[in-house]
């Protein structure tokens, strides 16, 4: 008997118009399996997890039809206490799930509510902390933990309740590389121990997760679109129809299927290297791949877009966030800023827009010939502006048009031109179909685009984007990359992108700047930076999956700086096809 079974289950959110969040779902989740739920934004993944955890329609208002059986029992007959012993849900934002003031109290909170005796609670807490590698951190304040540790703690909180099914909603989407590794290692442990785990994923982190999955379900517009073994699902041509992206490995091997006898879609880089290694031995590889031309900063006809010299910043009492940063970015460049959380990326960007001031008098920051350290804020924002990671921080109005006109009104823009200008920007960023929608009803990825569009109404020459693709699925991320590139081409906009998403950066940026511990440790053309895995490892950064595969094969003369599946395929397909 399945542990969880959806029978003709549908769910409509309160006030939802145009379709259902989940429609006629028939799924069984067996004991001891790790199941991935894949789908674009709005596909119904989070709703499925909440329905499974008994939160919808109790805490998430809406109308449910059909039934969910938990261990054979109708979920509607289960009280919260019994439910918690069956299904535990980890939500996507760890920060709001951590309720205790220490790690120990936080993990003990759930078991205490179950009314267990202190000895039992202690045992459960120990177990959960051990699995999530948080032992030794019991006395720490959850707020002080890194993103990865916080997500591990959110998982520990639920593990301590000992549910038979652990359901996680995009558990790594908000984490940096180190945090992702941490959470993925927990998922690996749970998979090895044959726990029952359900994980949703929008696609951007699929490649790091797929090897732990026994089964992959693809949702599309609230319906089950595909269901099967992960690599079979990856090989299904139907994915192209709905626009759910594959892993870079799956993308490459799907192409190779068409020209060779290779049929397997490998789930790991190591397995991919095993398959390709005998086929590429003795091959000679062309080195004429496209390399971005980087305009020399300030060396050409115009001065650099951004010129930072000896920038230091110390937060009281003695935290050196920046330790003498020198950065120069040419006009029209698209530059990626990478590094672990706390490496100084955001602090550097906040200096560029004048929000933070250096703590050393020798520092200099010049943006498009404007001395940021002496300029008025009103003048700075016309030269450079910033899009925050959380779009909700940057949206202040009730509708899209109000939001787009807000900055223009504050800048005393000609009143007759405000509406036409906002309409132009709305059209340019494809926001017209949402114009009537209430701000709260907008999907998060639309909010991110709106935040960017609102800033772009001020026509800055330099735009800083902090983790712009965090809430985006692959389709939206691809659209976003194209949009930035076209803006860059048509207006000469200089773009600085802070991100942990290496695939996005590989496709978007001409140059990368790597930061660690408040210093720039590596910079250069994207391809050349990703070709230095040892140096990147020092900054705890990994190149894209396809580049990692190329680097595994580099002993056989394969170029170690390949950035996309297409490039990889073009290098090997004439030979492999033989």
């Amino acid at each position, binding site marked *: 008997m399945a542990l969880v079974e959806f029978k003709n289950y549908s769910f409509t959110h309160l006030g939802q118009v145009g379709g259902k969040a989940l429609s006629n779902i028939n799924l069984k989740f067996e004991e001891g399996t790790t199941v991935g739920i894949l789908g674009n934004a709005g596909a119904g993944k989070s709703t499925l997890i909440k329905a499974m955890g008994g*939160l919808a329609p*109790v*805490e*998430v208002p809406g109308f449910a039809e059909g039934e969910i059986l938990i261990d054979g029992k109708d979920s509607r007959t289960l009280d*919260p*206490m019994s439910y*918690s012993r069956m299904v*535990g*849900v980890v*939500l996507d*934002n760890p*920060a*709001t*799930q*951590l*309720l*205790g*003031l220490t790690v*120990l*109290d936080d993990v*003990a*909170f*759930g*078991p*205490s*509510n*179950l*009314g267990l005796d*202190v000895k039992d*609670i202690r045992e459960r807490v120990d177990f959960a902390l051990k699995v999530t590698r948080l032992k030794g951190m019991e*006395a720490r*304040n959850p*707020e002080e933990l890194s993103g990865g540790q916080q997500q591990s703690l959110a998982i520990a*909180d*639920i593990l301590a*309740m000992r549910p038979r099914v652990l359901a996680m909603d995009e558990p790594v989407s908000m984490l940096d590389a180190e945090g992702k590794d941490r959470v993925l290692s927990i998922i690996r442990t749970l998979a090895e121990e044959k726990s029952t785990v359900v994980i949703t994923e929008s696609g951007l982190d699929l490649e790091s997760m797929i090897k732990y999955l026994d089964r992959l379900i693809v949702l599309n517009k609230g319906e089950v679109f595909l269901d099967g073994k992960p690599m079979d699902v990856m090989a299904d041509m139907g994915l192209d129809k709905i626009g759910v992206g594959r892993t870079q490995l799956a993308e490459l091997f799907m192409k190779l299927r068409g020209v060779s006898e290779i049929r397997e879609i490998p789930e790991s880089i190591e397995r991919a290297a095993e398959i390709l290694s005998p086929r590429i031995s003795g091959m000679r590889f062309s080195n004429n791949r496209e390399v971005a031309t980087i305009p020399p900063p300030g060396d050409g006809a115009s001065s650099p877009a951004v010129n930072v010299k000896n920038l230091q910043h110390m937060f*009281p*009492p003695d*935290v050196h966030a920046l330790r003498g940063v020198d950065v120069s970015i040419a006009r029209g460049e698209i530059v990626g800023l990478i590094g672990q959380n706390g490496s100084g990326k955001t602090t550097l960007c*906040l200096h560029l*827009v004048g*929000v933070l001031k250096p703590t050393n008098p020798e520092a200099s920051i010049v943006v498009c010939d404007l001395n940021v350290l002496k300029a008025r804020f*009103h003048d700075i*924002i016309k030269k450079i*502006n*910033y899009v*925050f990671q959380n779009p*909700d*921080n*940057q*949206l*202040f109005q*009730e509708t899209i048009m109000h939001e787009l006109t*807000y*900055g223009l009104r*504050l800048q005393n823009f000609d009143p007759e031109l405000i509406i036409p200008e906002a309409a132009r920007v709305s059209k340019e960023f494809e926001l017209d179909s949402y114009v009537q929608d209430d*701000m*709260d009803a907008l999907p998060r990825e639309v909010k991110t685009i709106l935040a960017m569009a609102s*800033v772009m109404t*001020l026509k800055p020459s330099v735009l800083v984007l902090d983790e712009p693709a965090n809430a985006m699925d692959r389709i939206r991320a691809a659209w976003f990359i194209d949009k930035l590139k076209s803006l860059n081409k048509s207006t000469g906009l200089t773009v600085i992108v802070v991100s942990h998403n290496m695939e996005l950066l590989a496709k978007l940026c001409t140059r990368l700047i790597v930061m660690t511990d408040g210093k720039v440790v590596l910079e250069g053309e994207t391809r050349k930076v990703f070709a230095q895995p040892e140096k990147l490892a020092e900054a705890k950064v990994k190149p894209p999956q396809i580049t990692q595969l190329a680097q595994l094969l580099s002993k056989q003369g394969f170029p170690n700086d390949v950035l996309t599946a297409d490039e990889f395929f073009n290098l090997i397909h004439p030979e492999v096809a033989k």
Partner: protein
Amino acid sequence: MPKWLEYNRIDTPVHNMQPLVKISLIASCLLLTGLWWDLRYLAILIVIGLTLVLLAKVPLYWFKILGVILLAYLPVTIIGILGQTNPLLFKVYPQSLVRITFAIVHLGVLGSYGVSVGGLLWGAASELKICMILLFTYTFIYSTDFNDIIGLLGNTRFPRQLLFVIMIAYRFVPETIRQIQVIMTALRLRGWELRSRNPKVIVERTVPLISSLLRQSLVTIDEVTLATRIRVFSNQKITAFNYVKPSRLDKGMAFLIIALLALAIAGLVLFNAGNI
């Protein structure tokens, strides 16, 4: 990094003090700060306050705001000083001293106003009290883990549900302060400024700030509600976990401090000790 008005876990005698003893000591000092006006008595409290601040290693930058507070309170103090020209208001300070007047204006039924030594001594105490409130409050915030307070209350018959609400509020207050700072930065990046001489304009300008904060607070409330529901927080039987009971010595120390406080209050009521 110790942030402004946030607890910092470091190893100092004040941080390590049993919370019951610490609460008794600081609450007693704060109460006496409110009751005493005599500069000689307040000097004792200042010595205690400064000792605690130094022992707890409270960051000096926390006190940057002191000047602003003292300045903001100065008009109230000045009005107080000007209104205390009548030497009979003073029962403890020598009359020969408080009678010395530098300037005085008689406004008929509105009374007499001016600058006297008595008024200045009162004014000095008034501004000093602000410094002392800051000394004790900062020491308490910087050195006291909220868990300790929760633990203490949890050890009593304090309702656990209410305790949880306090805990959640404490957990999210610093978060909300940070949130406000981020939203204000985002607003400034759109050309917004809060400063204006016109109060109506200021009110209008806070609307987008409040609107954004409200939107995010609602999301947070929703998520916290879900998180508590997932972890079955309800009115059912709950096990009290990890609550540390104070030892006999701690209880004895706390009792001693409260006894001294009672003595000080009795001295004030019966013998004007601490009054001016």
